[in-house]
Every structure is written in C-alpha cells, then in structure tokens.
C-alpha cells in the first residue's frame, strides 16, 4: 500500500506557490467571481462586503453566509478563499467543511480573540495571514500559516501602508542576511519568533512561504509597485469592484502583475480604465479605526 498524504504543509504551501505572479480578487457575488475569473484572477476571495463597505458600515464583521460562499465555489473553476475572524477557529472549521481552498484569518473582520490566533496546524485547509513586519509573519507561520500577505490598510485604496509593510519585511530579511550568527538569538527574541524559523529565513533570503501584498492596491501601477518591492503576487480587495469598470481594471491589474518590470505594458494597460475607487487617505483615519494594528 502506497502512503497518500493529504493536508501536509508541503501541499498547503505548495498551493500558494501555484498562485504566485497572480492576482486574488475580492468578490461578493457569483457574477463578480466570474468576472474575476474571466479577467485572469488566480483565485477569488468570497466575502459579503468588500473592506471599503465594512469600513463604511461599521459594526461587527464576521464570516460570510455559507450559501453565498457555496454559490461562488459553484460558479468558478479557480480556487476560492474565504475569511474567518482572527482566532475564530470554529468559523475556520466551517469554511474547511464548505470546501474553500484557502482560509484568510483576516484583520479585516472583527477579531474574535485579541490574544490567540487559530492553531492552523490542526487543519487540512491552508491558511493565509496578514503581517506588518517579519516578526508578525514568522509568528503566523509558527502557528501553521502556509501563506502570508502584508496587511496594508484594507478598504482605503491608499497604497502607503502596503508599501510600508512590504519594505519592513524586506528590510528585516536583508538585515538578517548580514547579521553575524551570534546575534541571531537576540534578534529572535526581539522579533518574538523561534530561532529555527529565523535561521531558515536567513538561509533562504526570503520569507519561508509565499508572500503576497494586500491592502490598498487600486491601479495596475500599484500592483506592479508591490511586485517590484518583492511581493510574490497581489490581493486586490475593494480596488476592482468599487471602480468604474471592474472587468477592464481587473484584466489590467492581472497584466501589470505578469509584466511588472515592463513600464510600456503597464502604461498600455493603464489607459482608459475609468474611475478608480475613490479611496480615503490612511492618514485621515482615526487610529482606533485602522484595521492593520488589530493583531500582531
């Protein structure tokens, strides 16, 4: 009898590797999911409200209705992701039972636990988690996250936080690589991560799992900026379906991610996209309404 292994970290992290160089789009209906697939999205994130609406509506944001998630699963052939609240392991169990391909334990929803994240090793479904810096990323990986995304500030259309977080991650990795070995123990303690994972990151010279950018991407140039800063791919939330012409913009962002080093192509796909999402400057948002600092 040959051993068949499912739910291993290799197949979880490997799935994220297949998404690289691609765009994952937030969708709230089956129709939007089909538009995203048609535009060349590598996956969709099924949710009831895009972050811009969650921000505008206020209140408690929770996991989406399973009916809506199943409708989206049935409507497309590409992978479907869905969000659970931070620490809400029962929402995660529900999403796993629905057959979603990836669970996003997301700060965009209202956290269910202000101390602990979901222990993701217990699941067969892989998880993606947000981070603002390398320490946060490695803590999530220790808990079993098989993919990371920099948080940015979701629902703003303002790229500044996404840039800040991606630069923080890349700077920390560069620092690690030039750091003498005998300083690693203290660095691990400062970042509140295991020495083993820190050493592995140092050897690889990159995040040990796939790292996408998220939170504020609204244009093809935004997406290419994040790719040039070292992202493996991008999540676009409100930026597509809160814009004037979602199908065209979605397709343009997909092309900008593939050709992120080719300004002529980025210029070409940026033409006549219509209105971008209106957006709000992150600086104008009161500190207690920012999503990214909700977990660490």
């Amino acid at each position, binding site marked *: 009898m*040959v*051993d*068949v*292994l*499912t*739910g*291993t970290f*290799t*197949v979880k992290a*490997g*799935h994220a*590797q*297949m*998404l*690289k*160089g*691609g765009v994952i789009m937030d969708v709230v209906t089956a129709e939007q999911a089909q538009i995203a*697939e*048609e*535009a*060349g*999205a*590598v*996956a969709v994130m099924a949710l009831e409200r895009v972050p811009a609406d969650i921000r505008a509506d206020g209140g408690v944001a929770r996991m989406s209705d399973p009916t809506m998630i199943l409708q989206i699963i049935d409507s497309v*052939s*590409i*992978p479907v992701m869905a969000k659970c609240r931070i620490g809400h392991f029962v929402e995660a169990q529900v999403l*796993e039972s629905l*057959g*979603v*391909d*990836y669970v996003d334990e997301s700060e965009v929803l209202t956290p269910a636990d202000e101390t602990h994240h979901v222990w993701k090793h217990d699941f*067969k*479904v*892989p998880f993606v988690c947000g981070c603002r810096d390398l320490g946060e990323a490695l803590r999530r990986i220790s808990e079993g996250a098989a993919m990371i995304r920099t948080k940015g500030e979701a629902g703003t259309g303002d790229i500044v936080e996404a840039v800040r977080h991606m630069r923080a991650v890349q700077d920390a990795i560069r620092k690690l690589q030039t750091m003498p070995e005998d300083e690693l123990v203290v660095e691990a303690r400062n970042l509140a991560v295991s020495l083993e994972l820190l050493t592995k990151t140092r050897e690889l010279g990159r995040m040990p799992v796939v790292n996408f950018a998220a939170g504020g991407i609204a244009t093809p140039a935004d997406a290419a900026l994040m790719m040039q800063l070292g992202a493996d791919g991008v999540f676009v939330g409100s930026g597509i379906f809160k814009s004037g012409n979602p199908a065209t913009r979605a397709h343009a962002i*997909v*092309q900008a*991610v*593939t*050709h992120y080093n*080719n300004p002529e192509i980025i210029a070409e796909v940026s033409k006549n996209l219509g209105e971008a999402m209106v957006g709000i400057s992150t600086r104008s948002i009161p500190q207690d309404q920012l999503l990214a600092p909700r977990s660490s």
Partner: protein
Amino acid sequence: MKIGVLAIQGDFIEHIALLSKLGVISRQVRLPEQLEGLDGLIIPGGESTTLSRLMSMYHLRQPVAQMAQRHKTVWGTCAGMIMMAHEITEEDPIPLQLMDIGVQRNAFGRQIDSFEQDLDIAEFNTTPFHAIFIRAPVIIRVGEGVKVLAELPDGRPVAVRQGNLLATSFHPELTRDTRFHQYFLDLTANQANGPGQ
C-alpha cells in the same frame, strides 16, 4: 542548451531554481520574442485559466506550438499539462493542443484533497519519485504514440511523453529531486542532436 520557463504566472522560479542546480541558466518567457533561440520550454504550475488568457493576449500560442512542431522539447507541469492537452473536459481554458492526450482539471477535488505520494517511474528504475499533486489534473485519454511514464495505483496516467513533449500532473519543481528536470534536459539534448529520437 537554452531553456525557457514560461513566466506569465505560477511557480516558474521553482523550475528555474532546479534547472540552475543542474547547471542550466534559463530564461523567463513573458513575450513571444523571448522564445527565440530556445531549445526547450517549461510551462509551469499555476492557474490554467490565467495562463490561457495571457498566452492568447500576448500572442504566445502560435510560437509555442511552432517550437513543438520543430522538435524542441516542451514540458508542462500541472496547469502546464492542461495547456499541453489536445482536449480537456471543460470549455475553459483553451489548451495548446500539443499532445494527443485528454485531461480533466481538478480531478481529485478541492485543495483539501491535494496530496503527496511516491510513484514508480519507468524511466527512473531506482527509487520512487515523491510526487506532489495540488488541485491536480489527470490524464483521461492517451493517444497513439504517447508513452505513459507514471500512473497512480488505480491506473490513471499522471506523467506522459510523446516524442519531444512531456506532461506531468504533479510538481517535480516543488521537490529537491532533479531527476525529472534531468530527464527533460537529456531529451532536449537528444532533440538538438537530431529530431525524432
């Protein structure tokens, strides 16, 4: 020997890393002119719908098909295998129709059904190959002249060769095992010495 890896989307960096372990510097291919002068091409894992759309949009279909006709080696892994097929069980994506095989996408179910398994591969008669299947396709029709290199215990083919063309349901590029990449390079070297071998 000049090898290209289609870099539209997917795990092309993993293929490039394994090739470099074998001493081969490869070229990322996003535009048709980047195919010029190549002896072989790898179509990596990724999302086949995305690959299909961008290959059409950036006019890569015809030049890749020409490479195959001119006896250059072309190897597709997972999504790449879907692109190599003659036909697939759904209308979308549109394959390149390079090999005489029929392919079913997502043949094993959703991500929670993705799996790892050791496979005996006829060409490597030593130790089994550790194969990683991620939302993987499977071959449901094998045409004449297509050789099955590996199959699952239930008999479904998951690795095939047709002359200068290769396709695998699984991802050798996610392992440290270089045998499949070496096999591809050997095939490419043979084709360069004289087509049809």
